[in-house]
């Protein structure tokens, strides 16, 4: 058994070395560096196209899904090896897809076989760009208070309302959406989970400009949009169950669980930028802040591994996704704050002829959203208090 896995590791390493272009082994600067797939897929460059197509051919776009859905059919252990080898070489993910990280797990658990065969292969082929329709202008932290209405019109649902913070809705092909199907039931019991084609008549989007200067999010409007009934996932009025399940995956994604991107150590950047005394950083306060960040980053990584290892032995790690989301994003926000301190005025450049120079200030601004999106830090702490510590309501 061990030899078979060792062989798999060596073959994988060899294949990645032979097939992953050098430029696809450099760290991504921001979300603009990703390939997103979809109906109107555009590659940033030739290497990105080669890398995606090689991985597609190998069925490694989603290596751990069943082959009947276009996955690679790898076991957990094999998939871990692949992830480790990709991290080792610094390989980028061939595609960034909410279909893989969020919708996919929910479809696996709640969709009918017919629905799985319809939607999953499109995800593994990178042909559908999915976005998420959860929050509304008046339903942020209180997500279950959402008001977008889906009326039963016999053979279809009629959708009216609006969503906010829909990631890349203006570029997406489909949206997975929480809609209210029962206005009389208690708020958690009248929600359904619906898949809507963004090309449907009556759907419109408007980008939201963030403090980072970018517009990854949109407002999405539904004006008498007809949605076929077969697009309902799971049971009518039981969408909250799916929503919660999916949120655990979103939290882990935002919290950085399973992240393969290699980040540079803060202390290395600091030593390049700041004065030294006897080979160590001359500023003792900043040095100790960097050490605290390094300590907690490093132990948080061990914690992800420990909880994954425990989950393999059958310990239920479900509620811990709030811990991952809370801690991972707080660490990222404090890392960006420190990075900004370390790089001084260079880290504040907003516009410049040098494109690379303006990346960091924008990432810094973007990071402020991390502790808000996908459930604020305060929401996560509330979940930990109630579900894990059993503190009373």
């Amino acid at each position, binding site marked *: 058994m061990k030899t078979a896995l060792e062989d798999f590791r060596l073959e994988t390493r060899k294949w990645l070395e032979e097939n992953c272009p050098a430029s696809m082994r450099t760290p991504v600067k921001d979300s603009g560096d990703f390939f997103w797939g979809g109906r109107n897929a555009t590659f940033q460059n030739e290497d990105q196209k080669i890398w995606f197509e090689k991985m597609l051919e190998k069925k490694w776009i989603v290596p751990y899904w069943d082959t009947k859905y276009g996955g690679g059919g790898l076991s957990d252990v094999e998939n871990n090896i692949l992830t480790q080898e990709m991290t080792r070489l610094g390989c980028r993910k061939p595609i960034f897809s909410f279909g893989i990280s969020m919708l996919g797990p929910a479809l696996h658990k709640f969709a009918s076989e017919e629905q799985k065969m319809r939607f999953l292969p499109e995800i593994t082929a990178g042909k559908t760009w999915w976005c998420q329709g959860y929050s509304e202008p008046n339903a942020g932290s209180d997500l279950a208070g959402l008001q977008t209405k889906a009326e039963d019109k016999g053979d279809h649902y009629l959708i009216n309302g609006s969503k906010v913070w829909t990631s890349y809705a203006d570029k997406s092909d489909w949206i997975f959406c929480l809609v209210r199907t029962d206005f009389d039931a208690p708020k958690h019991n009248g929600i359904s989970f619906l898949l809507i084609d963004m090309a449907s008549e009556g759907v419109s989007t408007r980008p939201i400009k963030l403090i980072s200067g970018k517009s990854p999010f949109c407002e999405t409007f539904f004006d008498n949009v007809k949605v076929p009934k077969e697009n309902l996932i799971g049971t009518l009025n039981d969408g909250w169950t799916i929503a919660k399940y999916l949120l655990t995956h979103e939290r882990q994604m935002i919290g950085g669980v399973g992240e393969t991107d290699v980040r540079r*150590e803060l*202390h290395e950047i*600091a*030593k390049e930028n700041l004065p030294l005394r006897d*080979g*160590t*950083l001359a500023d003792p306060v900043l*040095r*100790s802040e*960097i*050490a*605290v960040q*390094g*300590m*907690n980053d*490093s*132990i*948080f990584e*061990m*914690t992800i*591994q*420990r*909880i994954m*290892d*425990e989950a*393999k*032995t059958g310990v239920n790690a479900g509620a*811990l996704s709030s*811990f991952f989301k*809370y*801690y991972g994003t707080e660490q990222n926000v404090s890392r960006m704050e420190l990075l900004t301190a370390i790089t001084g005025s260079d880290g504040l450049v907003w516009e410049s002829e040098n494109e690379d120079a303006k990346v960091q200030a924008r990432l810094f601004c973007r990071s402020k959203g991390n502790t808000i999106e996908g459930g604020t830090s*305060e929401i*996560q*702490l*509330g979940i*930990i*208090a*109630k579900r*894990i*510590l*059993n*503190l*009373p*309501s």
Partner: protein
Amino acid sequence: MALILNEEQKMLKDSANEFLAMNAPVEQFRTLRDNNYQAFDEELWQEIVEMGWTALTIPEEYNGLDFGYVGLGQVMEEMGKSLTKAPLFSSIVLAGTALVNSTNQGLKSTWIPALMNGTKRLAFAQDEQSYFDPSNIATTAIETAEGYVINGHKKMVVDGAGADGFVVVAKTDEGEVGLFLVDANCKGMAITTEVLLDAGTYAQVEFKDVNVGSSQRICETGKGDELLNLINNTAAICLAAEMLGMITEAFGQTVAYLQERQQFGKRIGTYQALQHRAAKLFCEIELCKSIVIKALQGLDEGAVNLDELASLAKAKLGETIKIVTNEAMQMHGGIGVTDDVNIGFYFKRARVAQRLFGDYNYHLDRYARLNAY
């Protein structure tokens, strides 16, 4: 390696938990304290020896169990939960590590069985100042025709009172540190004791022209610094394991109090101001669990980055136990600052455990130095 316990390690942890709940609950700590700060209960210590805990890290060639530090760490953690007083840390973790890694076969064959069987015990004499600084040892061991003559003053010697001997850290003529096994009844030694905040007894040992034979040198020339570093890493990691037990117990008692204490007609655990603080502690404790098992595994594997793992463990646990015990006191309200409840014991023991073998600042600084910044 997976960051989880294997079946045998789990069984050991469970049996330690069961044994201590039965034989050494926190109330026993209170009894010993009230009995003029008794250091430990000799009968309990012999039962611990019978449980095999003193043999866990002793190699098979000395009839030890060679079970490893992950196992010993589970015992330390359980002892932390119940604040068990026993010389396991001083005699096995500190002196035991010195002897097991010694090159002096004569000392090894005499002392390792005696420590493991609980017939004798040794204490470790390193600190000279009020802070931990193994790089500045002033105690000297000057070579003579028959051996060495030791001069110096040691403090914070854990379980030093009543020990049969001391493992003494001293600077040699070669300028490195040497470790010497000195019998407690050697001429020229003066042992005094102090009780610290945690109701523990710590010795100060004065060495005035103490002559020891050359056969008492624990490791050969050129290996002293390395051995001392290993002892200090082992001590930091095992203390971190003990602190993890204290943290989980103090936190568990605090959460239970939040669930039951009523004010303004409601249980105080309903208040968000307390809920969020408790949830933050939960997160920090999750990190503590990970670094402790990782560092214990590092000891067993002889990890190349053991220095870093030891400093991460002692720094993280040191800072977290400060926050957790402070919050435990605050959340217990008035009752928390009385001697009637046990929560204050954890707060007081924490402050001593934090200082022993390097505090948060020391280990954070060491972690940064190890990473060259």
